[in-house]
């Protein structure tokens, strides 16, 4: 978060001497002075110093447990996929074969499908989500604000299998009979909408993913924008800016890091989403040639094939697919962090 928000938010507290507290800071600093009633009360309850160290030690352990969990997952994924790692090596991630009969495996079509659907979903969801957030914070009449926020959060709470069912019964026929032919007719020249339109495929999966990540991005972006102090908006307006200029310079600019964070969270959900995607993507491990072609994602293939996988190499390859998903998530997150860093670097010094 950029510091103008923090400094302004803290100002009232710093400049308010009464504050309701009984002991002033000066009293605590002086060793000879009688202890304040609050301190006396706390000291009668426990030894402050011991509690402090214990507390910080426990908190440190909590923080380190995150590392431990991640390392443990990584260890298990690598240990269990040893067989396929030794058989296919690093080429596993760039090979296109997936043949359980002959035991020939590669992850590339799945990695491609995962990245393509997630990025397409972001492309559709981010503008929409930001629009929702801006409308809610800046333009929305008070009466409408609560219902729209409520429905947005409701969308986030719907289980993914319900999204999948809805997609199968509504989105797929819509795509096959109306939206698909429309796109083919008017955007066919882009070559993105070639081939036979089954209704299921890359585009349908991306649309359902976009709908699923929309509420996450928009509700976090809304909270971030609400945190931008009113004075920032007033300042920009006072300088003669229009409404849109105020939103652009006063709100979006201040909230941009938080917004990128919201997008990363949405992307995380899109990368790992399994059920809804597998129901509409067509599950065909091929590099899709058009947006209508069926594809496959990393998470879907694990969910589909794990329970019936019999061969050792087959099983091991499926676990290595899990490893690939883990690595893709890490790499995509790293790129996103780098993006945040690049964005903040360009900001004026006061933003740090």
């Amino acid at each position, binding site marked *: 978060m950029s510091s103008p928000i923090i400094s302004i938010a803290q100002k009232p507290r710093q400049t308010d001497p009464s504050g309701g507290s009984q002991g002033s800071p000066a009293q605590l600093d002086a060793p000879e002075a009688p202890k304040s009633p609050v301190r006396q009360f706390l000291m009668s309850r426990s030894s402050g110093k011991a509690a402090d160290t214990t507390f910080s030690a426990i908190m440190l352990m909590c923080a380190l447990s995150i590392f431990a969990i991640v390392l443990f997952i990584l260890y298990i994924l690598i240990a269990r996929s040893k067989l396929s790692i030794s058989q296919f090596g690093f080429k596993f991630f760039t090979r296109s074969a*997936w043949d359980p009969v002959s035991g020939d495996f590669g992850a590339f079509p799945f990695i491609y499908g995962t990245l393509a659907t997630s990025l397409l979903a972001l492309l559709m969801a981010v503008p929409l989500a930001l629009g929702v957030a801006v409308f809610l914070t800046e333009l929305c009449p008070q009466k409408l604000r609560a219902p729209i926020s409520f429905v947005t959060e409701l969308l986030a709470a719907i289980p993914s299998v319900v999204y999948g069912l809805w997609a199968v019964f509504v989105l797929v026929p819509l795509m096959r009979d109306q939206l698909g032919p429309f796109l083919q007719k008017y955007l066919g020249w882009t070559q993105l909408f070639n081939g036979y339109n089954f209704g299921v495929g890359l585009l349908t999966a991306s649309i359902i993913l976009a709908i699923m990540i929309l509420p996450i991005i928009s509700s976090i972006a809304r909270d971030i924008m609400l945190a931008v102090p009113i004075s920032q908006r007033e300042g920009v307006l006072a300088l003669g800016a229009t409404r849109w200029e105020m939103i652009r310079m006063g709100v979006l600019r201040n909230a941009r890091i938080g917004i990128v964070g919201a997008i990363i969270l949405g992307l995380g959900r899109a990368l790992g989403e399994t059920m809804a995607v597998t129901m509409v993507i067509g*599950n065909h491990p091929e590099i899709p040639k058009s947006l209508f072609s*069926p594809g*496959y994602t990393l998470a879907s293939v694990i969910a*589909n094939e794990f329970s*019936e996988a019999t061969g050792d190499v087959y099983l091991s390859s499926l676990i290595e697919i899990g490893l690939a998903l883990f690595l893709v998530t890490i790499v995509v997150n790293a790129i996103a962090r780098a993006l945040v860093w690049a964005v903040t670097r360009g900001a004026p010094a006061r933003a740090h």
Partner: protein
Amino acid sequence: MKLRLLAALTIAMMGGTAVAQNINAAGATFPNPIYNRWFTEYAQAHPSVHINYQPIGSGGGIRQVSDGTVDFGASDGPMTDQQLSQAKVKVMHIPTVLGAVVPVYNIPNLNKDLNFSGDVIADIYIGKIQKWNDPRIVKDNPGVNLPDHQILPVYRSDGSGTTYIFTDYLSKVSPEWQGKVGKNTSVKWPGPGVGQKGNEGVAGMVRQAPYSFGYVELIYALQNKMSYGTVKNAAGKFLKATPDGVTAAAAAAAKNMPADYRVSITNAGGATSYPISSFTWLLIPKQFSDAAKGKAVKDFLTWMLDKGESQAAAMGYAPLPVQVQAMVRKTIMTVR
């Protein structure tokens, strides 16, 4: 007096602990409905035995019984020689019921069952036959007005016994399929098409998408009153799948039944044999470490033959043919 009471009490307690059996099993999902019914009814008749079956899939069933983590497993496809030799326990295959796979399709305004030859089905999935009015489909369906429209093949995306049976059949009737694809619970689908999860996924897709073609389990098609096509059997007859036709296929195969029951009955001979049929098996260890458990499993298997088999047809499964039942009865006696 006191002593006698104590002795009686001890015997009663010993009896109680010795008989109470918890048996864990896991495996195939296809026979799960009938297994569940069997295990529930068996538990009602024999309150001391409780069989806990988890339908985790054939692959999981094979793995768990091989590692000895469950008392017995279940699978839609037989274990391979390699899997049998690697297993920690000696595993026997006991056939229980039979299932079949039927072709389903969606051609608007067509109210006649279509006929399919095995090689035609294979070439639809290979991508050689792309249009519904392909001469080879027309040849099998004289007098039917087939549309000049692209076929959308639909297959199971999840690993399944259904796919195993289906691809086993296609491997037998199409040399090209055998060479290019082979048989397994999931395969590399060579041509165009989309994968959907579960019978319900494939059926839903076929129902929704005009000009699509797919395959589902017979029991699923029956329960959901779906119409399905006929398939040409080894004798050259187009047959619509019924539990009777499936049992007939098993009876035709019974003459050459190997002692370990690991036999594929797809494309079986006989004029009444439905060609895409298969046994489903329980994977029973030859020797139980706990003799009481072995006896409980043995008792259950006998009960299955006496009482269970007769329930199969009502649930859409095909019961074992009489000859095979007699063979299985002998095999069960070897369980220790």
